[in-house]
């Protein structure tokens, strides 16, 4: 607390105070602004830019943590282009993202409309629908591994009770992706609540006006709800894509990347490359790849979908 607008003469002896008093009002304001955001600036330099530079440097090196890093030029990048495991990992991640994000979005929107209904005990329903999304990731993984258990799991029990086959959810590479989509969709409570808040923010008068003009349920949804909700749909879409590229805990604990690498999600692959195979250089290149994919994805989403979003108060 060196800065006091009303200075006492005794404080003039401090060098900092003297310097501060020499500043003009405008300079003081600038200084004060940077003092306040300084923790973030330092954190950005130390924990974001610093690691990014390290990763950039390591990308051209081979390093197993023990020996000194060895410069290998573009070796890691060449390796990336011809790495079948990476190709598989990318395929898994992209397929999962392409299925789970739209599905989760539609389901969350649907549930939000349900819990927006004016019926009694709606608060209880809202709580029940939200709870799955707060289960700790590790506990969630164990729970779903048990639910999908081929012999004794509840899901196969229900399917068999209706005369269906016994499905090897976690053993069959063709089914395991669906299992991951199901457990992801179960936890859409967060985006559901965001949708709900959005739905409640739509002025009732719009629906009344639409009704007077003869709009039915479907038309009200299409021409009032969806346009009014588009910024929120867009937000949930972006967050959904980013989250879908970060699957780690469930892939590690439920299937450990298997069966036959069918759940070797990109972050799990990076983690293993770095900490199981000790290939820090190659792992750095893969981290850059993840970064590039997310940037590209964000750019595309903002460019092609963001431009269709309707904002009622632009500039807010």
């Amino acid at each position, binding site marked *: 607390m060196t*800065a*006091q607008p*009303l200075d006492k003469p005794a404080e003039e002896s401090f060098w900092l105070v003297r310097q501060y008093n020499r500043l003009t009002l405008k300079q003081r*304001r600038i200084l*004060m*602004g*940077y003092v*306040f955001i300084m923790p*973030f*600036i330092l954190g950005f330099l*130390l*924990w974001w830019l610093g*690691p*990014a530079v*390290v*990763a950039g440097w390591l990308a051209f090196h081979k390093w197993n943590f023990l020996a000194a890093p060895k410069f290998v030029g573009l070796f890691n990048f060449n390796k990336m282009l011809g790495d079948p495991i990476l190709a598989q990992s990318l395929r898994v991640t992209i397929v999962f993202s392409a299925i789970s994000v739209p599905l989760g979005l539609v389901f969350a929107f649907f549930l939000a409309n*349900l819990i927006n209904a*004016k*019926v*009694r005990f709606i608060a209880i*329903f809202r709580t*029940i*629908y939200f*709870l*799955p999304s*707060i*289960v*700790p*990731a*590790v*506990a969630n993984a*164990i*729970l*779903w591994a*048990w639910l999908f258990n081929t*012999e*004794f799991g*509840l899901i196969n*029990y229900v399917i068999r*009770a209706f005369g269906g086959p016994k499905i090897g959810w976690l053993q069959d590479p063709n089914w395991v992706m669906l299992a991951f989509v199901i457990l992801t969709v179960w936890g859409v409570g967060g*985006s559901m609540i*965001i949708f709900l*808040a*959005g739905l409640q*923010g739509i002025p009732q008068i719009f629906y009344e006006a639409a009704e007077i003009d003869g709009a039915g349920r479907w038309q009200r949804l299409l021409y009032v709800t969806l346009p009014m909700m588009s910024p*929120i749909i867009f*937000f*949930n879409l*972006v967050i959904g894509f*980013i989250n879908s590229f*970060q699957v*780690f805990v469930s892939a590690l*604990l439920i299937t450990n990347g298997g069966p036959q690498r069918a759940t070797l999600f990109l972050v799990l692959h990076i*983690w293993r490359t770095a*900490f199981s195979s000790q290939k*820090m250089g190659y792992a*750095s290149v893969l*981290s850059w790849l993840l*970064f590039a994919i*997310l940037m590209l994805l964000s750019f595309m989403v903002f460019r092609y979908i963001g431009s269709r979003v309707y904002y009622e108060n632009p500039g807010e």
Partner: protein
Amino acid sequence: MGFSESGSAFVDPKRVARSRTDVFFQWLTLFLLVFFAVVMVTPFIWLLSSSLKTQINIFQYPPQLIPDPFVPENYLYALTYKPFGSYFRNTLIVAGLNVVAVVFTSSFCAYGFARLQFPGRDFWFGIVMATLFLPYAVLLVPSFIIFSRLGWVDTFLPLVVPPFFGGGAFNIFLMRQFFRTIPEEIADAARIDGCSEFGVYWRIMLPLSKPALITIAIFTFLFAWNDLIGPMTYLRSPDNFTIAVGLASFRSQTDIHWDLQLAASTAVTLPVILLFFLAQRYFIQGVVMTGLKG
């Protein structure tokens, strides 16, 4: 539950149905609400039920819904098989420090972004938003190298020091949005009375922002409680494990002891659910504030 009374117990009398299709849609909504509530709740019931079964009964087909015999001892075995007490203490240390860091530094930075005018502010806020969209998985490998050079591996430092630098983009963003809703006139009045910017932040803005601060405190606590990838990367000796790492290693070592794994999972989930019921308002507020007003 009143279904036989033609819905009078459920349907709000204030909103009287006007036509046949309205009645139909009301019943359809009710049916779907109940159906999905069952879908959402069943895994929890299954978790609880399985966690109370004997090892023999858990491998039974068709499965029992109500465990017979009832084995609450599973919880005792599970939580003493591994030093969950020490995991719990470690998690509280990490989570507690994270909460302190986030509450103070994110609101401090957010005050600068929300209320002070200076060149470069929007540039730096743009960077805040950029880091918001970058998951920390991207930085995991290079951060690990930096922290291992600092000699911080197998200490709590990599998990508790970074939050003191700004407390994360998400929290800065959330606090900034909240500060912008507080009338500037209050701060101006304080300034006229001789209050410095620090004073405005500390004596005016923080006390007025309690709901938002509680919200970010809860989310930070939950994140620390749930996070696996950070502690798993940095913590090596079992003495330092947090609950998430402890539970994960418990799973890998007790392969077929589903009864114990599920008991431990339930025990780890219960505090979170309890916290939710105690602070439901702040949960919802936090989720909503991130999504709206963007």
